[in-house]
């Protein structure tokens, strides 16, 4: 902005020149010397390149370091395939559960007033700030051999820990806030007028929800599901504690990355890691697009 105004030489009349000077002077109050600007931009770019871009590039470089055939061979290994399948199953379960719950929770919080609402919001936020290892630990304490339900589960021959249900539970715990968090501000902003209108015109509660509430928040729902899914597929700490690392059975993709890496199978480890990195990149691109939709939706509501 500053540069454009100061550098435009097409202003010829004295009046316009004076105005340009005034504008430039006004902008000078709000900007830094050129040298300072360059240093700040360079620092920001350097820091982001070293700490964020390079690690991403390393993943793909290492994955392809032995050629494209080694890369695809690593990905089509039975162990890799079973990890990919397990990751997809677990993500589907926890995204599904959190989608339903997130919708209901956001609806309750945004459209109704009740005692303990702040407490409820704090609880929803909690998994964000708890160490993933602790998220896994709580399920070991509940369902482990020495856990509170451990004996009962053994008597009934139900396997939760070191099996798919435990992994799905821990993932659900960790990804719990995403959908609700994406929807609460959106639904609060929209208020209850449209729903009240629908109800007073004779729509049932469910009709109101599916015909009025849901269409209004569809981008928000997608946004929450997107972030929830990314985290569900990439979760490591919590899953690592409850999985038991049974090869070909309870290893998700991030866990397989760890095992292969520790066995010095770097190409294979980075090949799996590259899939997860691609997931992250696709998530970010989709997120940017969705954010544009969400902004537009807000603009429409503002007018």
């Amino acid at each position, binding site marked *: 902005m500053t540069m454009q105004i100061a550098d435009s030489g097409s202003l010829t009349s004295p009046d316009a020149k004076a105005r340009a000077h005034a504008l430039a002077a006004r902008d000078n109050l709000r900007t830094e010397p050129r040298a300072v600007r360059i240093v*700040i931009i360079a620092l920001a770019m350097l820091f982001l390149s070293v700490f964020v871009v390079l690690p991403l590039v390393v993943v793909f470089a290492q994955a392809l370091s032995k050629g494209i055939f080694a890369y695809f061979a690593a990905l089509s290994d039975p162990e890799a395939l079973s990890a990919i399948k397990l990751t997809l199953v677990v993500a589907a379960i926890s995204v599904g559960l959190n989608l339903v719950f997130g919708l209901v929770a956001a609806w309750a919080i945004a459209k109704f007033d009740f005692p303990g609402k702040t407490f*409820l919001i704090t609880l929803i936020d909690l998994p964000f700030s708890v*160490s993933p290892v602790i998220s896994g*630990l709580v399920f070991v304490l509940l369902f482990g051999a020495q856990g509170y339900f451990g004996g009962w589960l053994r008597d009934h021959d139900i396997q939760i820990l070191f099996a798919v249900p435990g992994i799905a539970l821990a993932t659900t715990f960790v990804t719990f806030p995403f959908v609700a968090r994406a929807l609460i501000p959106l639904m609060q902003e929209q208020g209850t007028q449209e729903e009240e209108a629908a109800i007073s015109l004779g729509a049932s509660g469910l009709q109101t929800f599916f015909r009025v509430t849901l269409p209004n928040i569809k981008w928000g729902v997608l946004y929450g599901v997107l972030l929830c899914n990314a985290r569900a597929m990439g979760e*490591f700490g919590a899953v690592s504690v409850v999985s038991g690392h049974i090869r070909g059975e309870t290893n998700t993709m*991030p866990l397989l990355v760890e095992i292969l890496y520790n066995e010095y199978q770097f190409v294979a480890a980075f090949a799996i890691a590259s899939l997860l990195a691609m997931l992250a990149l696709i998530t970010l691109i989709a997120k940017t697009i969705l954010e544009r939709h969400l902004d537009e939706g807000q603009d429409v509501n503002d007018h």
Partner: protein
Amino acid sequence: MGLTLSWLSVIILIPLAGLFLKSLELSPEQFWNILSSRRTLNALRVSFGLAFAAACVNLVMGSIIVWALVRYRFPGRKLFDAIVDVPFALPTAVAGVALTSLFAEKGWLGAPLAALGIKVAFTPLGIFVAMIFIGIPFVVRTVQPVLQDLEIELEEASGSLGASRWQTITRVILPSLAPALLTGLALAFARAVGEYGSVIFIAGNLPNVSEIAPLLIVIRLSEFRYADATAIAVIMLVVSFVIIFAVNRLQRWAQNRVPVH
């Protein structure tokens, strides 16, 4: 409503209650003995100390990045803006192996650093680097919207009243950003303290030196020393509660402060 609450209790309340119940099985003396053992203390010191140092680096670098992204126009600005979110989106295990191979002695950055006599991977310095990586989006994304919404008139008033640019920044802009900066610092710190995946690969995991508290919990669990694991977890949990609480208070304070301007 009922559905919300019961689902919430199944997924969050019961597991957490289980953790605290388990820790109540310990006598205060046992609890204290576990926490004051040399290895536990060192692990907590490594986690909290390095997390705080990393959060401080993120505070400074995050402010510079926000300033560049919001106030200046340069080629690739939108790309860099999007890149800030990568540590959020990249699975932690992937970040861990990537940073390790980058900073290992033969890595792209590790090799030149090793030539200078600086060893990063498999030392506490590596933990520090990983914690900086995962914390950066927290500072940027909390401060960015506040700087964007900052009223231009304030700066112009300050400048036209004769304040130097530096005075305007330190006396006018920084105080308005302070709550957001502190929130960002707290969030980056909380995340770094609990971080596991991106740290354990690069850490070296030497007891008492480069062993983080979450890893010690995992080790104790694998040794079936559940009481030890629980005690460390409870301490970390209490600290993160305090941090969330502080952040919430900070934000309420910042909101109430706005009309004064």
